[in-house]
C-alpha cells in the first residue's frame, strides 16, 4: 500500500513501443459497441421536445393529447423530476439544464420527453405536446450581455468576487483576478506597449458519436445505465443525486466512446432516460440527433478579451494584463477564471494581472472542451506577444525564450513552478527544420505556445493474474483514445511479461471502486500510476507464493524480468519461477493472485507545447490553407508513442478548425443557425496536411515512469499560431476567430482602401 510514485530512471522494454491496441479488431470489424449499439428486451424509444425560443417562461405544458398516442408509454416534464429549487445550486443547474423547470434559457433547452414503442409514435407524441411560452428578450453576445440594460437571465444573480456585492442583479456571475507585482509601474518601464482586443466565437467539441444511452429502472430501486461517457462513476453519482437513487443500486456501464473532448464529462439526457424508464417501467433508449448535440449539449465559451503587454527594447516584458469575458451559457461556472489563470502561464513576468468575468447568455450551458478556456486566452496573448516581437524587431521564438517561465518562476496564476517544459519546446522549435524552410508566394509562418494544467485524481485498478500466467487489468478510466494499449504496456513493463499477455478492460461501476473521469489529460497518467501500484502489489503476492513453493523466507525472494528469484548463494540450485509457474500453482498456495490499487494520483504536472504553422492565403478570396504544421510537446514519457502523436495531431486539427471555420452562428431570433456538420465546418481530410510531431520526454518527477498527461495542450497554440502565420502572410492582424474567408477578405479590403 505504501506506493512511492517518485520517478526512477530505468531502461524500458515495453513502454515506448508501438504494439497493436487490444480493442483494434473489434473497432475495424464493426463489433465494438458504442452508446447507440446496445439494446435491452422491451426497450422503448426516448425523444426530447426542445424549446424553439432562446428565452421564454414556460406558462403551461399539456401532454394529454400526446399521452393518447398509441404506443406512448411515458411522458416526463420537470414536474416528474425532483424539485431541487431550494437545494444544492449546482445540482439544480444540472437538472434544470436536462429539463427546464420554469424558464427555457436557450434554443434547444429540453421541456419534455417521451418514451414510446417506436420512433414513429415518439415523433407523433412530440408534435402533440402543447407548450405555451411567454417569450422573453434574449441575449447571446458576451459584451451585449454585460451592458446594464441587457435582458437578465437570472434575476437573482449578483456578481460574485467584487466588494461590496452589487445591489442590482446582472448577467455577470463572477469576477476573478490573478497576478502579482504592479502592472502600472511595469507599463511605465516599457519602451513599447501593445494593446489589442480580440474575440473568439463559440465552438463545439464535435465528437462524431452523438450522446446515447439505454436506461433501465426496476421497481425495487435498482437501475442500469449503458452510456457513452468520459466518466461512468461520475455519471452514476450525478444521476443518483439528481433522481434520489442509491449509488450502489445504479450500475453504470461505459460503452465504447465515440469521442468526448470534454463534452461527455457532463450529463445531458441520461437523467431524463432514467426518469422515463422509471415512469414507464421499461428500459428506454435515448439517442441525441446531431442537431440536438449542437443545440443542447455543451459547447465551449465565446469570448471577448483585451490584452496589454509592455516590453523594454532589450526584449524583457515589463508588464502584462488581460481582461477576459467568457460566455457560460445560462448557468454560472468558472470558464473565464480558467482563461485568466492560463493566459500568461508560459511567461516569467514581474508584473502581471488578469481579470475574468463569467457572463450568462442565452446559449447552451458551456462544457469543458480540451484544455477548456485556454485556447482563447492563448490566442489573445500569443497574438499580442507576436506583434510585440515584431515591433521590437525580434525573432518571435527568441523573444519567447527570453521571457519564458522556468523552474522557480512565479506563475501568473500564483504558485511557483517546479521543473517545466516550455523552454525545451521553444528550443526544439528554434532548431526545427520547419522554421528555416522557404516560403512560397502568399505564404506566411507563425508560431505560438500553449499551457495546460493536467490533472490526476481518484483512481482504482484491479490486476488479476490468471492461472495460465496471463493478466487481466480492470481500469475505471474510460478509454477515449487508446489508453487500454498504454495501460497494458505499463502492466507488462512492471511485471516483466509480454504485452500480449495482458488484457485491459474498462470495468463498470459495480465491479471496481470509484474513478474520476477521463478528463484533464488524466486517463493514462492516473491509471498507469494505479496500474504500477497494482502490479507491484501483485508482485508482492507472487513473491510470497514463490517463497511458499520453495519453502524459503519471502525476504529472500526477488522479482526480476517476470520471474521470482531466490536470492543468495544458498539457493543456487533453485531455478527462477515464472509468472506462469507461480500462477499454475496458485490454487494450492493460497488461491487467486491479484493486485489492487486505490489511490489519488496527484502530481500530474503542468504541460507546455510550441506549434509552428505555415499558411497560404488567397488574397482575392481570403481563403486560408494550412501548408505545413508542426507540434512540439513534452510527454514526460510517451508510453505508446503512436497514440501520443495521435493526441498531438488531433488537438492541432481541432485548433485549426476553430481558427479557420468553426463557429456557432445565431440569428436575430436567438436560434442556432448551423446545428449540423454541413454548416458547422470541422476540418475534412482534404483540408489538412500531414501534422508533424516532436515528442519531448522530460520526466515528470511525480510519476514512476515520468509520464505526463498529453491529451489537451495541443489544442491551445493553434489559434494564435495560425493568426500569426496569416499576419505574416498578408500583413494584417486578425483579431476575430474564426478567421473565415469573409473576415479575412473584409480585413484585406479595408487595408487596400486605406
Amino acid at each position, binding site marked *: 500500500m505504501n506506493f512511492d510514485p517518485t520517478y526512477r530512471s530505468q531502461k524500458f522494454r515495453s513502454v515506448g513501443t508501438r504494439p497493436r491496441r487490444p480493442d483494434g479488431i473489434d473497432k475495424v470489424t464493426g463489433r465494438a459497441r458504442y452508446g447507440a449499439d446496445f439494446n435491452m428486451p422491451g426497450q422503448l424509444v426516448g425523444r426530447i421536445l426542445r424549446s424553439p425560443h432562446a428565452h421564454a417562461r414556460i406558462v403551461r405544458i399539456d401532454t394529454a393529447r400526446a399521452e393518447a398516442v398509441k404506443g406512448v408509454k411515458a411522458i416526463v416534464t420537470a414536474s416528474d423530476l425532483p424539485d431541487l429549487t431550494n437545494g444544492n445550486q449546482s445540482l439544480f443547474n444540472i437538472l434544470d439544464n436536462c429539463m427546464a423547470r420554469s424558464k427555457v434559457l436557450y434554443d434547444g433547452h429540453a421541456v419534455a420527453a417521451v418514451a414510446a414503442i417506436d420512433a414513429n409514435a415518439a415523433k407523433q407524441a412530440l408534435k402533440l405536446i402543447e407548450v405555451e411560452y411567454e417569450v422573453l428578450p434574449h441575449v447571446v453576445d458576451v459584451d451585449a450581455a454585460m451592458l446594464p440594460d441587457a435582458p437578465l437571465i437570472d434575476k437573482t444573480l449578483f456578481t460574485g468576487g467584487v466588494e461590496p456585492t452589487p445591489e442590482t442583479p446582472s448577467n455577470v456571475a463572477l469576477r476573478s483576478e490573478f497576478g502579482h507585482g504592479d502592472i502600472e509601474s511595469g507599463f511605465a518601464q516599457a519602451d513599447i506597449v501593445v494593446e489589442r482586443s480580440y474575440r473568439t466565437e463559440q465552438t463545439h467539441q464535435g465528437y462524431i458519436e452523438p450522446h446515447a444511452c439505454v436506461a433501465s429502472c426496476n421497481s425495487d430501486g435498482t437501475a442500469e445505465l449503458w452510456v457513452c461517457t468520459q466518466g461512468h462513476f461520475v455519471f452514476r453519482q450525478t444521476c443518483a443525486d439528481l433522481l434520489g437513487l442509491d449509488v450502489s443500486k445504479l450500475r453504470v456501464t461505459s460503452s465504447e466512446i465515440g469521442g468526448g473532448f470534454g463534452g461527455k464529462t457532463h450529463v445531458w439526457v441520461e437523467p431524463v432516460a432514467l426518469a422515463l424508464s422509471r415512469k414507464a417501467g421499461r428500459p428506454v433508449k435515448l439517442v441525441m440527433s446531431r442537431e440536438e448535440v449542437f443545440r443542447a449539449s455543451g459547447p465551449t465559451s465565446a469570448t471577448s478579451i483585451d490584452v496589454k503587454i509592455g516590453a523594454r527594447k532589450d526584449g524583457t516584458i515589463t508588464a502584462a494584463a488581460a481582461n477576459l469575458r467568457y460566455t457560460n451559457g445560462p448557468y454560472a461556472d468558472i470558464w473565464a477564471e480558467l482563461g485568466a*489563470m492560463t493566459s500568461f502561464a508560459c511567461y516569467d513576468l514581474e508584473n502581471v494581472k488578469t481579470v475574468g468575468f463569467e457572463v450568462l447568455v442565452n446559449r447552451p450551458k458551456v462544457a469543458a472542451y480540451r484544455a477548456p478556456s485556454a485556447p482563447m486566452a492563448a490566442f489573445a496573448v500569443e497574438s499580442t506577444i507576436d506583434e510585440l516581437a515584431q515591433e521590437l524587431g525580434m525573432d518571435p521564438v527568441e523573444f519567447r525564450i527570453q521571457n519564458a517561465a522556468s523552474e522557480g518562476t512565479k506563475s501568473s496564476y500564483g504558485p511557483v513552478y517546479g521543473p517545466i517544459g516550455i523552454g525545451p519546446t521553444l528550443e526544439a522549435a528554434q532548431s526545427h527544420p520547419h522554421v528555416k524552410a522557404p516560403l512560397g508566394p502568399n505564404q506566411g509562418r507563425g508560431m505560438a505556445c500553449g499551457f495546460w494544467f493536467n490533472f490526476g485524481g481518484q483512481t482504482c485498478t484491479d490486476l488479476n493474474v490468471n492461472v495460465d500466467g496471463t493478466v487481466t487489468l480492470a481500469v475505471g478510466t474510460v478509454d477515449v483514445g487508446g489508453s487500454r494499449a498504454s495501460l497494458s504496456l505499463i502492466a507488462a513493463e512492471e511485471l516483466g511479461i509480454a504485452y500480449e499477455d495482458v488484457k485491459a478492460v474498462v470495468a463498470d461501476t459495480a465491479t471496481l471502486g470509484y474513478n474520476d473521469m477521463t478528463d484533464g489529460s488524466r486517463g493514462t497518467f492516473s491509471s498507469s500510476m494505479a496500474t504500477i501500484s497494482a502490479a507491484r502489489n501483485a508482485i508482492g503476492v507472487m513473491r510470497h507464493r514463490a517463497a511458499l513453493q520453495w519453502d524459503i523466507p519471502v525476504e529472500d525472494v526477488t522479482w526480476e524480468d517476470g520471474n521470482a528469484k531466490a536470492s543468495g548463494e544458498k539457493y543456487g540450485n533453485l531455478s527462477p519461477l515464472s509468472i506462469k509457474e507461480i500462477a499454475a500453482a496458485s490454487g494450492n498456495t493460497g488461491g487467486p493472485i491479484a493486485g489492487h490499487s486505490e489511490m489519488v494520483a496527484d502530481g500530474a504536472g503542468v504541460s507546455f507545447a510550441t506549434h509552428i504553422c505555415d499558411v497560404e492565403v488567397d488574397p482575392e478570396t481570403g481563403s486560408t490553407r494550412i501548408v505545413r504544421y508542426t507540434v512540439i510537446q513534452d510527454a514526460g514519457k510517451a508510453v505508446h508513442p503512436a497514440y501520443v502523436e495521435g493526441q498531438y495531431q488531433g488537438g492541432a486539427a481541432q485548433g485549426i478548425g476553430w481558427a479557420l471555420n468553426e463557429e456557432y452562428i445565431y440569428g436575430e431570433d436567438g436560434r442556432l443557425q448551423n446545428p449540423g456538420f454541413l454548416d458547422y465546418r470541422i476540418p475534412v481530410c482534404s483540408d489538412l496536411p500531414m501534422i508533424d510531431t516532436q515528442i519531448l520526454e522530460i520526466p515528470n518527477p511525480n510519476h514512476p515512469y515520468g509520464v505526463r498527461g498529453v491529451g489537451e495542450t495541443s489544442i491551445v497554440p493553434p489559434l494564435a499560431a495560425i493568426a500569426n502565420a496569416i499576419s505574416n502572410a498578408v500583413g494584417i492582424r486578425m483579431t476575430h476567430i474564426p478567421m473565415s474567408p469573409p473576415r479575412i477578405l473584409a480585413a484585406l479590403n479595408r487595408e487596400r482602401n486605406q
Partner: protein
Amino acid sequence: MVDVKLWAGLVPLADNQQTVTVEAGTVRELLRQLGDRYPGLREPIKNEVAVVMDGTIYRNDWSVELPENAEVFLIRRLAGG
C-alpha cells in the same frame, strides 16, 4: 509554520487576508486549521479547492506532507476536457 496563499475568491472569506500562516505538517492539518480559523472557508474547502505545493497541484491527496518552507497555494479545483 507555513504561509498559505489564497486565491482572490477566498480572500473575503478569510478576513481579507491574502496569506495566512498556519502550523501544519500535512495538507489535511492545514485545511482543518484554516477552516477552524475562518469558518467561511469550510464550504469551499470541501469541494472547491486544490492545494499547490511547490508548483505541483494536488486536487485530492490531503495526506501529503508539507515540507519545511514549502510554497503553498490554494487554487480553485479545476476540471479539464
